[in-house]
């Protein structure tokens, strides 16, 4: 128990040192090309990374909900959403038909063995990261219906 307390102490004393930059990790495109995440994010506009998987119902609900209002968001702010699939090889083949069936307009990248997810110390999905360039502005985990409106308010705040 002392060790646990020690760990908690370590964490809480270092909150101020939290991560501010996106680690540069290689991902895969839907066509199987290897690309670095740095090369895919715009230097000056807002990028939202949404970590999801084909088997994660709240993730799909979130991306479905944003999809309905994505063009409205883009009218208001210069932003791009990248949906990063953390599916492993069991479900990777379901990504292409699923996103087409859903008609999502996001750039989709695959984090095949969860390298980026791990580098960001993400334990749970859905997990959203708001970036400007490669600078991390905001992170959020979990999704409940309607939370996309709150996310947009936060994005608007940071875009100013």
């Amino acid at each position, binding site marked *: 128990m002392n060790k646990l307390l020690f760990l908690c102490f370590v*964490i809480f004393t270092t909150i101020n040192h939290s991560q501010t930059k996106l680690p540069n990790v290689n991902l895969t495109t839907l066509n*199987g090309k290897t690309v670095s995440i740095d090369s895919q994010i715009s230097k000056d506009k807002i990028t939202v990374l949404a970590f999801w998987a084909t088997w994660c119902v709240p993730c799909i609900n979130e991306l479905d909900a944003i999809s309905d209002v994505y063009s409205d968001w883009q009218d208001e702010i210069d932003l791009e959403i990248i949906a990063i699939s953390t599916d492993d090889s069991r479900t*990777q*083949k379901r990504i292409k038909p699923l996103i087409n069936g859903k008609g999502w307009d996001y750039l989709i990248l695959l984090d095949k063995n969860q390298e980026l997810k*791990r580098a960001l110390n993400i334990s*749970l999905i859905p997990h959203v990261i708001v970036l400007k360039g490669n600078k991390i502005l905001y*992170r959020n*985990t979990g999704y409940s219906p309607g*939370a996309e409106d709150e996310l947009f308010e936060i994005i608007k705040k940071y875009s100013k």
Partner: protein
Amino acid sequence: MKKITTIISLLFTLVALSQENSNISYGFESNSQYYLDDSKTGDFLFSDRFRSNNYFKIDYTNNNFYVGLQTESYEPSALLNYSPNLDKTNIGLFYLGYKTEKLNLTVGHFYEQFGSGLILRSWEDRQLGVNNALRGARVKFSPKEYLHFTGLYAKQRKGFDVSKGEIYGLNSDIDLSSAFKIENSSLNAGFSYVGRKQDVTNTDLDINNLTNLFSSRLEYSKDNFYSNIEYVSKGNDAVFIANQIRNVKKGDALLFNFGYAKKGLGINATFRRMENMNLYSEREATGNIYNESVVNYIPALTKQHDYLLTNIYVYQAQPQVSFQDPSLLKSGEIGGQIDFYYNVKKGTSLGGKYGAKIAINSSFWYGLKGDYNFTGFDYDTDFLAFGEKYFTDFSIEIRKKWSKQLSSIFYYVNQSYNKRYIEETFGKIDANIIVTEATYKLGKGRSVRFEGQFLATQDDKKNWAGATLEYNANSKLGFYLNDIYNYGNDETSQQIHYFNIGGSYSVGAHRFALNYGRQRGGLLCVGGVCRYVPESTGVTANIVMSF
């Protein structure tokens, strides 16, 4: 503990010295349970009523250098049915490396995957208690944008120790369409080698210390069509049956996939055949229930269902040779699955004002047909012949939005589960499952979700019914109640409610959750890999924090 304190202090010195180009990230996860006695399912019979699994990971980068550490603490002991090798507090992972655009060098622990993982994949899943990271050295080199090489030498993590066997790996991925400037289509190839070296003793059979595996892959896509194929061959390897080497056999796997996807429509079909494709970093680990020492990744290729009652009869891939008795002989599996996604347009009679989304999946898995010799522990299989039926599953999901506030999901599953062959016990189950769920948004982030479930079968434990009620007070705070009830069980004492109540609070990248209730015993499956969990009652607490 001293070791850990020293290393953590060292890392913090680095942070103190850190300059503009440095970056640090932390993650903390804690999963604890206090187990209670239960008048229906029995008393808690193990030591330590309070059990807790904790993970603290820290990553530090400075220019091109990176270093990281994961401390794990299972105190006073690990949650029920985790490997006994996960005990007390220790360093689970440590690594340091150097990374540029073309080069990535790592020493210490690392995760790696070649191709789809059929030949090699190391990964972590804390819920399953899987962490088969490799510990050694790895070089990744990309001389061109379209050319990627990996070489590695390692032993595999087992508890807080490493495997007896050694792993050698070489991998190449080549983007042929970029290399040859082919336009309008995409073509990628990959080749891998994996060697596992472990001394063999106490056998008269002729077994090499080194087992070799080769994988070749090709991936093609043009316009809306895509396809890929992978073939893996495994050289002679010891066949373990009932903890003894009984024979020496080759193994192989063939994976073929193709699909078509355009806006509003997607179809995907996968075929896989595997024979004697288990690969462990220690041969003696064959068939262990903790998923320890597994070198390659062989998930069940079936749909991962989302509901409690759809996850009672879950298929697990059957790559292994098993000779339990003359009527239960296995050497692999053959089968496939088909997925179909369709978006019903807005304004049509089925689609209504908001449209509807349909997803259909069908999967079917069989044993390998062939001549089996029970007493000689030998077999000779036919290449494309289907043997005993192991599992079939058909599901349809319809998602529909009725208004700005109300949306619903209808889900139907038909399953056939050959328990005798899959779990090597007895019985066969045919089941039909229906789930309906509705979500109603109340505004300002508040919402209510209700789920009703029903499982009908004449077999095993007979019928089940279930329901879930969820209320989100805002985007941060949520509560739920759920219950599944085995009301159809022939034995009245076994007609048990598995009732749970809980809530969660999220703030930014952190989440805290609390649950009280009774868990159904059985297979807990994540990503096609399963772990057996015993029935239990208690209070669980989960903390996840990312910085």
